[in-house]
C-alpha cells in the first residue's frame, strides 16, 4: 500500500502512454502498419436475405473481376467453419443456410481494397427465402430461443406482490447499440514458414482469435501468433467478433501464400458485426404506500440474433443487475434468450448489466409517478442496507455498500433539492419547454461470471541497462490499461514509468489470456504484472543482501535507486551487478481472482469479487412540440476505490457516461421489414457529438474509499460501470414530460419516442 512519504506513481494523474503519438498521428493502428509489397486486400460478400437457403452461389464473375486473386467459400475452409466462442454455431462463411441479412457468404482477395470490394458486387446468388423472425417479441411468441430460458427466484414474489398495498405492471422496449469503435474490424495475416500464421488483429481477445484461427486452418495454436498493440476503440465489439475476420484473412493468406489484409469499411462492419442486445422488458411490482418494493417479477426477452455468441453470459449479467442498488427480497426473473434472424448480438460495455439496471430504474420511476413522489425518495427507500437488507437475489452478501454515501454527497453538491424546486417553477411557467432532473445510482459487479476467465499472466524483463520490458495479456483500446500496468511495475521497482517499455499484446509472450473485458483489465493484469515484478525484485533483494552482507529488510527501492543499508546505488547499477552475478532478470507473473464462486444450477453464489458504485444527476430541457431535448448539466460522483490514475479514470467515467447517453437518446438501430439494417454508418446512426455533452459537466471520483478487497493497490474497475450513469439522462427526460405524458417512454428517447408519449391535446 502506498504511504504518504513514498514517491509513488500510483494515484498520479499520468497521461495516456500514447498521448503524444495520438496527437501526432503517429500511433500505429493495424491499418497503419507498412504493407509488404505483395499484400492482398480482402472483402466479404454478404447475404441479402435474413433467412434463406443458398440454392446457388455463382462466383464466376467475381473470380473474373479485375485484380481478383482468390475467392473462397465455406468449402475452402481447411478446418472448422466456426468462430463461435461458446457454442460452435457461428459459421465463418455461410455454407447452405444464411440466418441474417449481412451474413458473410464468401470472401475475395484482390490486389487492392477497392478491387476486392467492387468484385464482391458481381456475385450472383440464388436464395430460397425462408420465414424470418426479426424481433425479440416475435421470437418469444414463436418460442424461438437460442439458449434455454433461465429463471431466478428469491423469496416469494407472487404472494409479496399480491399482498402489497399497490401493484403496477408494464412493458417497455429498450433499443440496442452499435459499438461504433472509430477503427473498424481489421486483420492482417502473414503466412510464415512451416504453415504457421502471424496475424495483426484489432482484438480485445488475442488468445481466442489464435484458437479460432488455428481450428479454421486445421493447425495448432502454437502455429498461430496474434499481435495487437492498440485498438481504435473496442467497447466489447472486438471481443468475439475479430476471430471471424482474422480467420478469413488467414484462410486467404494460406491459400494465396501471400499476406492478406481484411479491413471492413464502416457499412460492412455495422452490417456484419453484433451489437448490444435490445430488450423487451415486462414487469409486475408490488409496493407499499411509501414506495418500498415488496415483490417484483421481471420477464426479459433479449434479441440474441442467429447464434449464441456471448448471449448466455450477457443475459446472466442482466439477471445479476436488475437489482441495481436496491434490495429486492422477493423477486422472480425470467430471462428469454431469443433466437432471431438478425446479426448475433454480442458484448458491449456493461455486457447485459445496463439492460437489467434500466429495468429496475424504470420500475422505480413508475412507482414514483404512481405515488406522486420524487423518484429519488423511492430510490433511497429501496437502497441496499449496510448491515441488513444486503443480500442480492443471487444470495451474495454486499460488504462494500457506499451507495448511501455517494448519493448523499451528490445530492448536496449538485444542489438537487433546490434545482428540483426551480424546475417545477420553470415548468409551471413554460408551456412547451419542460425541464427534468434525475439522480440515478450505479452498482456494478466486478468479475467475469465465467469463473475460469478470472486469470491473467504477465511477463517482465529487465535489460542490462536497467530498462524494463513489460508485456501482459491485456489489450489497449484507449482505456489506458497499458499506462496503468506500467505504473504498477514502476511502483514496484520505484523507477520512472518512462523507463518501462509497454509492448504489444502477443500470444507468443503471454498465453491463454482472457479477453480484456468485464472491466477487469487492470485488476487482473495489474496483479499479474505486480507478481512478475515482485519475483524479480525478490531475487534482486536476495542478491543485494548477499553481496553487501546485509539483511534483506535493509534493501529498499526508492527514487530510481536501491538503498542497501547505508549506501545506495542507481537502479541500473544494481541490475548490471545482478546480471554479472548471473541472476535471472526476467519473470512471468500470474494472478487469479480469489473468493469468487457461482453455482449455475441454483443461480446462487458469489459471482463478484466486489462492486463498483457511482451516481449521476442530469438535468435536461425538452421541447414538447418536437420531442427534441438538450442535456444541460450533469454531476457525477464515481467510485474507483483508490484510483490508480485519476486522469484515466475520469476519462473512463466521462466517456462511459456519454456512451450511455447515446444508447438511451440518439443511437437507434433500425431494421427493415426484410431484416436489413438500415442504419449502418454515421450518416444514419447517430452517436453523440460534442454538442451533446453537457456544458456544465462536473465529474468527481469518490475520495477515501479504498477497495475492501485486496485488488491492485485497492483500486476498483472503471471500464463499464460509468456507462450506466447515462441512465440519469433518460430518466431526466422522463421526468421533464411526466406531467404531460400518457404512455410509457421507450428507449432510446429519440425525439419521436419522446413525442409519442405526450398527450395529443397538450396544445389546446
Amino acid at each position, binding site marked *: 500500500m502506498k504511504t504518504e512519504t513514498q514517491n509513488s506513481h500510483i494515484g498520479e494523474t499520468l497521461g495516456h502512454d500514447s498521448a503524444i503519438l495520438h496527437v501526432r498521428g503517429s500511433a500505429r493502428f493495424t491499418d497503419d502498419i507498412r504493407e509488404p509489397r505483395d499484400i492482398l486486400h480482402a472483402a466479404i460478400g454478404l447475404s441479402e436475405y435474413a433467412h434463406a437457403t443458398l440454392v446457388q452461389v455463382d462466383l464466376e464473375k467475381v473470380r473474373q473481376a479485375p485484380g481478383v486473386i482468390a475467392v473462397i467459400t465455406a468449402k475452402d475452409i481447411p478446418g472448422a467453419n466456426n468462430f463461435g466462442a461458446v457454442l460452435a454455431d457461428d459459421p465463418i462463411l455461410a455454407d447452405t443456410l444464411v440466418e441474417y441479412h449481412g451474413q458473410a457468404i464468401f470472401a475475395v482477395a484482390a490486389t487492392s481494397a477497392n478491387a476486392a470490394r467492387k468484385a464482391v458486387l458481381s456475385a450472383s446468388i440464388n436464395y430460397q427465402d425462408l420465414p424470418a423472425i426479426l424481433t425479440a417479441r416475435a421470437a418469444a411468441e414463436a418460442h424461438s430461443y437460442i439458449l434455454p430460458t433461465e429463471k431466478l427466484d428469491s423469496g416469494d414474489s407472487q404472494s409479496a406482490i399480491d399482498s402489497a398495498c399497490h401493484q403496477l405492471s408494464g412493458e417497455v422496449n429498450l433499443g440496442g447499440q452499435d459499438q461504433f469503435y472509430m477503427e473498424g474490424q481489421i486483420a492482417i495475416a502473414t503466412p510464415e514458414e512451416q504453415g504457421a500464421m502471424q496475424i495483426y488483429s484489432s482484438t480485445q481477445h488475442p488468445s481466442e482469435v489464435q484458437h479460432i484461427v488455428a481450428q479454421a486452418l486445421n493447425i495448432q495454436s502454437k502455429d498461430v501468433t496474434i499481435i495487437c498493440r492498440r*485498438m481504435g476503440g473496442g467497447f466489447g465489439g472486438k471481443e468475439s467478433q475479430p476471430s471471424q475476420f482474422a480467420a478469413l484473412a488467414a484462410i486467404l493468406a494460406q491459400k494465396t501464400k501471400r499476406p492478406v489484409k481484411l479491413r471492413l469499411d464502416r457499412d460492412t462492419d455495422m452490417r456484419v458485426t453484433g451489437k448490444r442486445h435490445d430488450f423487451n422488458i415486462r414487469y409486475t411490482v408490488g409496493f407499499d404506500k411509501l414506495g418500498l418494493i415488496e415483490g417484483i417479477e421481471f420477464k426479459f426477452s433479449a434479441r440474441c440474433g442467429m447464434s449464441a455468441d456471448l448471449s448466455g453470459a450477457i443475459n446472466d449479467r442482466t439477471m445479476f443487475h436488475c437489482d441495481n442498488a436496491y434490495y429486492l427480497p422477493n423477486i422472480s426473473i425470467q430471462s428469454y434468450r431469443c433466437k432471431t434472424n438478425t446479426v448475433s448480438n454480442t458484448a458491449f460495455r456493461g455486457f447485459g448489466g445496463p439492460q437489467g439496471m434500466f429495468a429496475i430504474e424504470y420500475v422505480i420511476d413508475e412507482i414514483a409517478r404512481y405515488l406522486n413522489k420524487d423518484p429519488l425518495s423511492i430510490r433511497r427507500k429501496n437502497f441496499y442496507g449496510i448491515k441488513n437488507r444486503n443480500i442480492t437475489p443471487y444470495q451474495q452478501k454486499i460488504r462494500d455498500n457506499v451507495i448511501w454515501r455517494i448519493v448523499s454527497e451528490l445530492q448536496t453538491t449538485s444542489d438537487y433539492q433546490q434545482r428540483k424546486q426551480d424546475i417545477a417553477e420553470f415548468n409551471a411557467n413554460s408551456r412547451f419547454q419542460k425541464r427534468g432532473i434525475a439522480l440515478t445510482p450505479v452498482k456494478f459487479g466486478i468479475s467475469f461470471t465465467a469463473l475460469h476467465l478470472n486469470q491473467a499472466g504477465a511477463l517482465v524483463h529487465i535489460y542490462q541497462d536497467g530498462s524494463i520490458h513489460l508485456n501482459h495479456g491485456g489489450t489497449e483500446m484507449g482505456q489506458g490499461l497499458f499506462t496503468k500496468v506500467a505504473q504498477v511495475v514502476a511502483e514496484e521497482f520505484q523507477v520512472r514509468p518512462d523507463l518501462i517499455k509497454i509492448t504489444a499484446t502477443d500470444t507468443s509472450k503471454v498465453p491463454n489470456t482472457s479477453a480484456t473485458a468485464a472491466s477487469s483489465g487492470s485488476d487482473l493484469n495489474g496483479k499479474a504484472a505486480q507478481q512478475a515484478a515482485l519475483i524479480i525484485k525478490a531475487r534482486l533483494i536476495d542478491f543485494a543482501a548477499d553481496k553487501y552482507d546485509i539483511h534483506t529488510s535493509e534493501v529498499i527501492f526508492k527514487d530510481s535507486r536501491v538503498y542497501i543499508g547505508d549506501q545506495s546505488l542507481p537502479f541500473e547499477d544494481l541490475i548490471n551487478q545482478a546480471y554479472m552475478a548471473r541472476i535471472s532478470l526476467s519473470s512471468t507473473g500470474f494472478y487469479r481472482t480469489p473468493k469468487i464462486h457461482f453455482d449455475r444450477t441454483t443461480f446462487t453464489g458469489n459471482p463478484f469479487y466486489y462492486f463498483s458504485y457511482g451516481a449521476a444527476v442530469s438535468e435536461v430541457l425538452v421541447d414538447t412540440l418536437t420531442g427534441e431535448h438538450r442535456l444541460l448539466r450533469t454531476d457525477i460522483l464515481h467510485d474507483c476505490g483508490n484510483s490508480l490514475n485519476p486522469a484515466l479514470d475520469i476519462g473512463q467515467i466521462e466517456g462511459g457516461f456519454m456512451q450511455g447517453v447515446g444508447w438511451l437518446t440518439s443511437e437507434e438501430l433500425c431494421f427493415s421489414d426484410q431484416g436489413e439494417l438500415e442504419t449502418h454508418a454515421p450518416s444514419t446512426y447517430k452517436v453523440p457529438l460534442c454538442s451533446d455533452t453537457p456544458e456544465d459537466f462536473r465529474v468527481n471520483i469518490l475520495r477515501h474509499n479504498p477497495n475492501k478487497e485486496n485488488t491492485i493497490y485497492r483500486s476498483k474497475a472503471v471500464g463499464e460501470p460509468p456507462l450506466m450513469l447515462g441512465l440519469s439522462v433518460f430518466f431526466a427526460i422522463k421526468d421533464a414530460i411526466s406531467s404531460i405524458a400518457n404512455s410509457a417512454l421507450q428507449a432510446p428517447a429519440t425525439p419521436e419516442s419522446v413525442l409519442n408519449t405526450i398527450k395529443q391535446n397538450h396544445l389546446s
Partner: protein
Amino acid sequence: MNPKKKQALPKTIQHQPVRFVLDGELIDVNDYTTNQTLLEYLRDTLQRKGTKEGCAEGDCGACTVVLGQLSEDKESIQLSTSNACLQYLPTLDGKQVFTVESLGSELADLHPVQRSLVEHHGSQCGFCTPGFVMSLFWLYKNKTQTCYQELLEVLSGNICRCTGYRSILDAGLHMYKYASSVIPTVPNTEDKNPEAEKWMSLAGPSPTQNNANLALLKRCVRKTTFAQYAQEERQDPSKLHYLAPQSTEDLASIVLDRPDATLLAGGTDIGVSITKAFTEFPLLVYTGNIKALKKINITANQTEVGSAVTLSQIIPTLLSEYPELEDFFKRFASLPIRNIATLAGNICNASPVGDSIPLLLCLDSHLKLRTGNSHRVLPLSEFYLGYQKTALQTGEFLESIQIPRRGQSAHLASFKVSKRHDQDISAVCAAFYLKHNDRSEHSIKIAYGGMAAIPKRATATEDFINNNHLNTETILQAMNILKQEFTPLSDFRASAEYRSKVAGNLLYRFLNEVIYPDTPPATA
C-alpha cells in the same frame, strides 16, 4: 445504379498532373485514378497514415485535413477544414494541404493544439485524435481566442467515441495558452533548425514563412490546368474524366457538348457515391475554380448567389439579413461539410430533405439556369418535378440563386428536427414566412422538407391562413388542413405520424410566437 453490374477498374488518367502544396513542397501527381480520394492518396501513396478512415462519407471527421487556397487578392492564404475522404484528388489542384504530419515531427516539439490535447487528456484510443487536431489547428490559425459555443461548431464534424468530449473541449478552450510554451525563442540565424522553422510558421504568424508559402501556392495555381477543353479531347471523349473550367462560358460549352457530364461542386454527395457505390462518372466537371460562380452579389432587390458559393460563404450573408436564422444554420451540416458543400448543390441534388430548400422556397427564390449562352429564370417552386427529378434540361446548369431581400414587417423562421442536434439529416425541415399587419391581414408562405418526395410549399394551409383571422382556434384548424395536405413516408429517420405531427407543431410554434409575442406563455 445497379450494384450487380460489373465495372472496370478505375482508369488511370495521365494527361494532366494534379499539383498542390504539401509541407512546403510542390507535389505533382501524375498517376491517379478516377475514383481516388485525397485520403487514399495520403495513406496509400504518400504513406502518411495519420489521417484515418472512419466512415468514408464525411460524417466522422477522422480524416479531417486543412486546405489552403489563395485569397481573391492573392495576398493571403485562406484555410478551411475538409474531409479527405470526400475530397476528390483532382480538386486539390492549386491548393495547399495540411495533414496532422504537417504540424510537427519527431524532432520538433508539439503544436499548441497538440500540447493542449495531451495536457487535457483529450485522447483515449487516439484514432479520432488527428482529426480533432486538424479542426483545432484550423481554429488556432484563424482566431486568437475562442469560446465554448464556437468550439461546438468547429468540432461538429468530429466524432470521438471514447472521451465524451469534455477533455477535448477543455483542450480547445485552453490551447492558446500553450502558444508561448511551444514556440521556442527565435532561433538565431546561424543555427537554423528547418524543422523548428516550419513548425513555427504553423504555430503562429511568421511573415517570411507565410510569404514563402504564398509564393509556392501562387506557383501552384496555373491558369490552364484542367481548364483546356482541347480539340483532340473533344474527339476522343474516353480520355477525358475530369475538367475544371475557369470561366462560366467554358462550363456552359462543356455541359452543352457533353450531356454525360456531371457537375462537381462540393462533392459531398458525389464523393459518397464514389466511396460507397463505386460509381464511375464518365466526366466530372468541377465548378470550384470558376471565380464568377463563387460570387455573392447583393443589390437592393436581391442577393444573387453563384452556384459555386459554399455554405460557409453564404451563411454569414444570410445571417446578416436574417439573424433569426442563427439557431437553424448552426444545425446545418458540420463545418468541414459547409466548407465544401454549396447552396447550389443542396438545391440540385434534389433531395427531399435538403435543409436550405424550405427556407429558399419561403423567400421566393429564383434559379438562374443557363444553357450555352442563353438564360432562363425559374421560380424554385417550379424546379422540382418529382423525387430527385428537377427541371434542369440537357445541357443546362444552375448558374446562380436569386434570393429577394428582406421585406417589411416580415417574420421568418426555419426549423430543423432530427435525432441528433448537429450533423444529422432532417426528419422534418420547415420554413415559415409571414407578412402581417394585424391578425386578419397577412400572407404566409409555408414550406417543408421531409414531408413529400420533394421539398414543397403547403399551399392549401397557406390559403386557409391567409383567408382567416389568426387565433388559437384557427391555428389548430390550419394544423388539421396541413395534416391532410401531406402524406409523408416512414423511414429510419422518422415515422410518417411523427413527421405529420411535428410539421403541425412547428406551424403552431411559429404562428403562436408571432401572434402572441408579448403574452406570457400560458401554463400547460
